[in-house]
């Protein structure tokens, strides 16, 4: 019997190794797998490369992982925010490496990894500083930049519901990077608010088919992050 359900958060992240590349879902707090990140901090893996849209907000979640100095490098599109003080300080001190990627290129590089694409030409960033040193090509008179996939060892994502085969559905804009990160990692770990019996999820509406997911963990809605708003609503 296939059963991807794990019962504890520490079990879910137990084998994340030092030096691993870890994708973390979320666009700001929406879709951020806060409990998995906390478990990763407790687990102690270090020298990590993190892939996320941002570089942490406030002092919790990804920001706390950065603050614990477990991250060697971050690949993201929008590190600087009003509450990105943890990243800002590390960056200014030269204590973290930043690979800045336009948001759509970030998404497509992740998608490409999951789809087995070796590289692709994109018009985004052509002629800008973020394309410096990269191969370019004129195709039908338009300039394109060669970009390569981003593979990961692990992906930590948050979904709304899942089953023991790893099928997932998401909630509103908390979907963001979850579906593509699940495809790009060797081991995708999903925290969900509800685990349902096999056959309960409408097969026409499953967003991430279970083939992309290795572990599913149920996590109660908490009062933190984007969950707070769900409760209030």
């Amino acid at each position: 019997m296939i059963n991807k359900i794990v019962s504890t958060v520490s079990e879910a992240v137990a084998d994340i190794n030092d030096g691993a590349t870890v994708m973390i879902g979320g666009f700001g707090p929406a879709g951020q797998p806060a409990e998995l990140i906390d478990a990763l901090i407790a687990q102690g893996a270090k020298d990590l490369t993190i892939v996320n849209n941002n570089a942490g907000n406030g002092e919790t979640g990804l920001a706390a992982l950065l603050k614990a100095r477990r991250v060697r490098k971050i690949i993201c599109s929008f590190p600087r925010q009003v509450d990105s003080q943890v990243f800002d300080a590390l960056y200014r001190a030269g204590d973290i490496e930043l690979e800045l990627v336009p948001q759509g290129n970030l998404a497509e590089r992740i998608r490409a990894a999951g789809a087995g694409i070796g590289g692709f030409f994109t018009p985004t960033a052509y002629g800008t500083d973020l394309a410096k040193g990269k191969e370019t090509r004129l195709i039908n008179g338009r300039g394109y930049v060669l970009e390569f996939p981003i593979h990961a060892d692990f992906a930590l994502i948050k979904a709304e519901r899942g089953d023991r085969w790893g099928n997932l559905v998401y909630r509103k804009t908390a979907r963001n990077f979850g579906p593509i990160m699940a495809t790009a990692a060797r081991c995708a770990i999903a925290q969900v608010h509800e685990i349902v019996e096999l056959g309960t999820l409408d097969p026409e509406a499953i967003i991430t088919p279970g083939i992309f997911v290795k572990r599913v963990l149920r996590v109660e809605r908490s009062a933190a992050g984007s969950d707070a708003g769900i409760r209030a609503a």
Partner: protein
Amino acid sequence: MNKLNRDQMAARVARDIPEGAVVNLGIGLPTLVANHLPRDREILLHSENGVLGMGPAPAAGEEDYDLINAGKQPVTLLRGGSFFHHADSFGMMRGGHLDFCVLGAFQVSACGDLANWHTGAPDAIPAVGGAMDLAIGAKQVFVMMEHLTKQGESKIVEHCSYPLTGVGCVNRIYTDLAVIDVTPQGLRVLEIVEGLSFEELVRLSGVPMRRAQAKAYA
């Protein structure tokens, strides 16, 4: 002269968004355009974090932080709206499915180069987000900005001194002084605010411009 305020600028941009258009409004000044879209037109707002058919801000107490816009503020979804992941969302831009985007800018050059993501200052932490994808991704790219910096320098320039967001990507510029098209023949002034002459506009801008049959602005 009668400079336009931010809301007047937003209203002016909104007038040019036609029925049926799919539009992405950038963070900051462009967000105001949503408040001025004519109610008799069905216009779909796209938000790059994965929403099509985005509605206005929710009533107090109704916020759902799983339903946010690109600026991470709570929004609502219109009937018929949809959610999708990031690769699809940026495919909508890059694939040429988006009719318009409205962006803020530090500078726009006479040939439509856009600089809006980074001042290039050595101590600034760079952050690009979806700016470069939007700049090349919509069929029509509108820029909305004050015409002059606080120091009185023109933000419409011969060549951008700030790092570029996109090359030759801007189609039209809306400022507090004028509406200007970027054409293969250079900048073409469509409208000027009351009390400002074409010659004075060109002098303030410091770049060559041609005039269409210039109308009074707004």
